[in-house]
C-alpha cells in the first residue's frame, strides 16, 4: 500500500463540492436561467430603490380572488386593481378601473364606466369583457371565498345576489343584483375583487396562483416560497406610478428576529412588531413607528355547533365571565383595547350601550353549575403560531386563557398550528374554541357581521363563521341591513343584532388593536390603511 497524504482529503472535499454544485445547476438549469435573468435585471438597475418589507408569514396564493388572509392580500393589493378603490386613509370609495358609476332607482342595476387606457401586465388591453370574465370566474368555485362571503353565494346558488354581469360596451359594464345590497360599492373596492388578466388565467390554469397578472402599480417578478416575493414597479400604471422600483416581501417568521433585521438595516419596513419591542423602536433614532388606524377585532370563537358544553349558552356566558380581559389586554402592551362587540367602536353601527361581561369567577361557576358542568370539562383551544396584527402573541394569550379557565375547572388543551393549518382546521370545525381575528375589508359593518356571524357562512370546510353560530333572528337582521340603503335604519338593525349576539355569546371578543409597523426613518408617505393593506405606489424611500 502506497502512502498517501490524508490532506489531499481537503482537496477531494472541495472537488466534491464543485461537482455537487455543478450537478445541481445542471439538473435545474431552467430555473438557474430564470434566476440569471432576474439577477441581471436587478443588477442593471443597481441604483434602484428597493423597499424590503418584512412580514411574518408567506402568501398562500397570489391569485387575488382566493385569499382571505392579510399576508396574501398585502401582495395581491400591489398587483391588481379593483373597479373602485378606497381613499388612502379611510374607506370612502374613489374611482380606479371604473371612472364613474350609477345605480338604478331600485338599487339593483349598477352601471360602471371603465378606463380605456389600461393594459394588463402581460400587455393585453383591459376591457369590459375582462370584468365579465372575472365575475364569471368567481362563480365557478367555492374556492373564491370572498365572493361567497360578500355576495351570499352558496353551493346551490353560485352566483349569490349577482344576477348578471354584462359588457354593455367596450368600456361599460352593467351588474344586475337580485336584491339590493347596501355595501355593494364598498365591497367592490376590496382587493379580492381585483381584475385578473383572462389570458393569463387561462394559460396558467392551476398554476395561475403563482403567476399572477393584473393591472396594479406593481408587476409580479418572483416568488420563493417561505422566503420572498418580489414585485417591480409598473411603469405604465394608469394611476400614480410607484416611487420605488421594487418591493420585496420577505418572510421572517419570528417577530423578534424581524425587528432585529430592521435594526440591522437589512429590511426597511415591517409589520407584526412585538408589542414589547415598541419601546425599543421608539427610542431608536433611526426608526419610526407607524400606527395603522384600528378597524379589526380579535376574538375567541366558541364552536356553538359542537355537541357538548360549547352548545350551551350558559357555558359560553360563563367562559366570557371567567376571562379577565383587563389582564389579557396587558399582553397587547398598549396597542390594544378590550373588545366588547364584534365590530370596532370606530365603525358606525357600534352599540356602545352593551356592557361587557364583568370578570366574575363565582358567577361563572354558578352558570356552569346551572348548565350541569360544575365539575368542569376538557376542551380544546386552537391557536396559531404566527402573530397577527390583531393578536400579536397568540400562544401566550392562549396560555393566559388556559390558566384563567382552570379557575372554573375548565381544562384547556392548546392546539397550535401554523396559520394555514389553523384556518383549515377552524373552517373544518375541528375546534371547541379557536382564536381568530378580522380586519375590516371595506369599512361596512356588514363586512364584520355577515362574514363572521351569519349562518350563511357556517359551511364546514369554508366557514367564515367559525363559531358556527346559527341564529335566525340575527340572520334576518343582517339580511335586512344588507338590503336597506338607509344608514340610520341599518344602524338600528345592527344595534339589535349586537344585543342578541352579546347574549348568545358565540364569541369571547378580545381586542381591537392599532397595529404598529416599524420602519426606517427615511420612509415617507407610507399611509397604512385601516383595511390592513395598501398599495405601495405612494411610498417614498430615501
Amino acid at each position, binding site marked *: 500500500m502506497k502512502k498517501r497524504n490524508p490532506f489531499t*482529503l481537503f482537496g477531494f472535499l472541495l472537488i466534491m463540492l464543485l461537482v455537487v454544485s455543478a450537478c445541481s445547476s445542471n439538473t435545474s438549469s431552467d430555473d*438557474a436561467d430564470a434566476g440569471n435573468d432576474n439577477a441581471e435585471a436587478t443588477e442593471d438597475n443597481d441604483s434602484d430603490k428597493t423597499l424590503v418589507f418584512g412580514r411574518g408569514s408567506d402568501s398562500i396564493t397570489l391569485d387575488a380572488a382566493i385569499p382571505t388572509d392579510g399576508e396574501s392580500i398585502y401582495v395581491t393589493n400591489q398587483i391588481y386593481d379593483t373597479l373602485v378603490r378606497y381613499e388612502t386613509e379611510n374607506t370612502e370609495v374613489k374611482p380606479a378601473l371604473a371612472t364613474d358609476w350609477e345605480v338604478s332607482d331600485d338599487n339593483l342595476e349598477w352601471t360602471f364606466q371603465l378606463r380605456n387606457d389600461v393594459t394588463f401586465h402581460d400587455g393585453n388591453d383591459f376591457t369590459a369583457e375582462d370584468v365579465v370574465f372575472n365575475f364569471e370566474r368567481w362563480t365557478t368555485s367555492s374556492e373564491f371565498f370572498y365572493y361567497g362571503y360578500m355576495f351570499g353565494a352558496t353551493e346551490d346558488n353560485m352566483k349569490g345576489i349577482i344576477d348578471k354581469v354584462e359588457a354593455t360596451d367596450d368600456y361599460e359594464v352593467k351588474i344586475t343584483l337580485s336584491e339590493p345590497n347596501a355595501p355593494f360599492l364598498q365591497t367592490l373596492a376590496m382587493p379580492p375583487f381585483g381584475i385578473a388578466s383572462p389570458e393569463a388565467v387561462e394559460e396558467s390554469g392551476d398554476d395561475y396562483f403563482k403567476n399572477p397578472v393584473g393591472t396594479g402599480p406593481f408587476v409580479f417578478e418572483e416568488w420563493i416560497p417561505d422566503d420572498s416575493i418580489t414585485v417591480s414597479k409598473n411603469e405604465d400604471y394608469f394611476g400614480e406610478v410607484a416611487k420605488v422600483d421594487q418591493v420585496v416581501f420577505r418572510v421572517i417568521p419570528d417577530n423578534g428576529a424581524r425587528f432585529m433585521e430592521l435594526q440591522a438595516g437589512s429590511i426597511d419596513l415591517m409589520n407584526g412588531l412585538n408589542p414589547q419591542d415598541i419601546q425599543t423602536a421608539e427610542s431608536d433614532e433611526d426608526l419610526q413607528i407607524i400606527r395603522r388606524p384600528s378597524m379589526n377585532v380579535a376574538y375567541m370563537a366558541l364552536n356553538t355547533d359542537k355537541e357538548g358544553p360549547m352548545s350551551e349558552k350558559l357555558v359560553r356566558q360563563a367562559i366570557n365571565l371567567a376571562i379577565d380581559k383587563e389582564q389579557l389586554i396587558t399582553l397587547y402592551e398598549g396597542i390594544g383595547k378590550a373588545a366588547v362587540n364584534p365590530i370596532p367602536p370606530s365603525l358606525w353601527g357600534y352599540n356602545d350601550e352593551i356592557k361587557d361581561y364583568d370578570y366574575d369567577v363565582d358567577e361563572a361557576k354558578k352558570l356552569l353549575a346551572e348548565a350541569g358542568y360544575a365539575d368542569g370539562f376538557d376542551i380544546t383551544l386552537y391557536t396559531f403560531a404566527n402573530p397577527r396584527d390583531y393578536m400579536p402573541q397568540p400562544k401566550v394569550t392562549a396560555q393566559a386563557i388556559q390558566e384563567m379557565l382552570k379557575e372554573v375547572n375548565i381544562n384547556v388543551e392548546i392546539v397550535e398550528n401554523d396559520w394555514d*393549518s389553523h384556518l383549515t382546521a377552524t373552517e373544518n370545525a375541528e375546534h371547541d374554541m379557536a382564536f381568530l381575528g378580522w380586519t375590516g375589508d371595506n369599512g361596512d359593518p356588514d363586512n364584520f357581521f355577515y362574514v363572521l356571524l351569519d349562518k350563511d357562512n357556517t359551511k364546514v370546510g369554508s366557514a367564515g363563521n367559525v363559531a358556527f353560530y346559527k341564529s335566525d333572528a340575527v340572520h334576518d337582521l343582517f339580511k335586512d341591513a344588507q338590503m336597506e340603503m338607509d344608514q340610520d335604519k341599518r344602524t338600528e338593525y345592527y344595534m339589535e343584532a349586537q344585543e342578541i349576539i352579546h347574549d348568545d355569546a358565540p364569541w369571547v371578543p378580545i381586542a381591537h388593536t392599532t397595529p404598529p409597523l416599524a420602519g426606517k426613518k427615511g420612509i415617507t408617505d407610507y399611509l397604512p390603511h385601516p383595511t390592513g393593506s395598501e398599495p405601495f405606489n405612494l411610498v417614498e424611500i430615501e
Partner: protein
Amino acid sequence: MLKYIIRRLLMLVPVLIGVSILTFSLIHLIPGDPARSMLGEKATEAQLELLRADLGLNDPYIVQYGRFLGDILQGDLGQSIQSKENIAYEIMHKLPATIELTIFAMIVAIIIGIVAGVIAAVKQYSWFDNISMTGALFGVSLPIFWLGLMMIWIFSVKFNVLPPSGRITAGTGLQTITNFYLLDSILTLDWQAFKDVFLHLLMPGVALGTIPMAIIARMTRSSMLEVMRQDYIRTADAKGLKKHLIVFQHALKNAFLPVLTVIGLQFGLLLGGAVLTETIFSWPGVGRYVYLAVLSRDYPIVQSTILIIAIIFVLINLVTDILYKYFDPRIRYD
C-alpha cells in the same frame, strides 16, 4: 479498491429500499385515515375521496409503494398539499442552502477541531489542553437552538455586528448560478455579496458546527496521543527531527483516520441539526422546509424531504467508508 466500492454500493441497495419503505410507510403510520388527518375532521367525503384518489390511497399498499418508488426513480416527488408546488423542484431549490450551511459548519468544525485537538495533544495537561477539552465537553452538551439564540442576542442585539437571519441581505443583487451563494459570489467576483453571504453564514455555521467541532477536537486529541506514544514517533524524536515536523508530517497523518470516521458521521448528523439551526436563523433550506411542512401537516413534503436527506446521509457514510479504506494502509480490500 474498485471491488470494494462495488460491494459497498451493492450493500447500499437493500438499505435504500428499506429507507424508501420506511418513508413510504410514514404516511400510513398516521393513526386513522391519512386523508382525513390532512384535511381535517369535517372534510366532506367528496374532498376526502378526491385526495385519496390523488394520493392513490385506495390501491393496495404494494401498488402504492410501487408507484411511489417508480415516481422517485423518475425524480417525481409529488406535490405539496398546501401550495401544490412540485416538491422535487422545491427541494432542488432549497438543498443548496442547506448543503452550503452544513459544509461551512463542517469546515469550521474541522479546522478548529483539529487544530485544538492537535495542540491539546502536543501540550498535554497544559492550560490549553484543559481549557479546550473542557470546552469540547461543554460543546457536546449544548442545545444548539439555545446557542443560536444566545449568539443572536450577543452578536445581533447587543453588538449588532452580524445579521440575525437569512442567507443574504435582500436587494444585494447576487447573480445566482449554482445557488451556493458563497460560490456564486466568487464566480461572479461580487465581493460585496461575498462578504454579505459570509457574514450571514457565520452564526448559523458556528452554531451548527459546535457539536462536531467538540467531537472532532476530542477525537483528534486522543488519536494523536495514541500515535505519539508509538515507537516511530519516538524514533523520529530521537533522530532530532523538529517538533512541528514530527507532529504534522508523522503523527497527524496517522492520527487522521479515526477523525475521518467521526467527520463522516457528524456530517450526516448536521443534516438533522440543520432543522433547528435553519428554524432559528430563518435559513431558507430543506430543514426549515420540512419543519414548516410538519407544522402544516403537509405529509408529502415531509416524506420526500426525509427520503432525500436519508439518501444523502447514506451516501456521505459511503464516501467516508471509502475514504477510510483508501487512506488506511492496514486495510486491504480484496
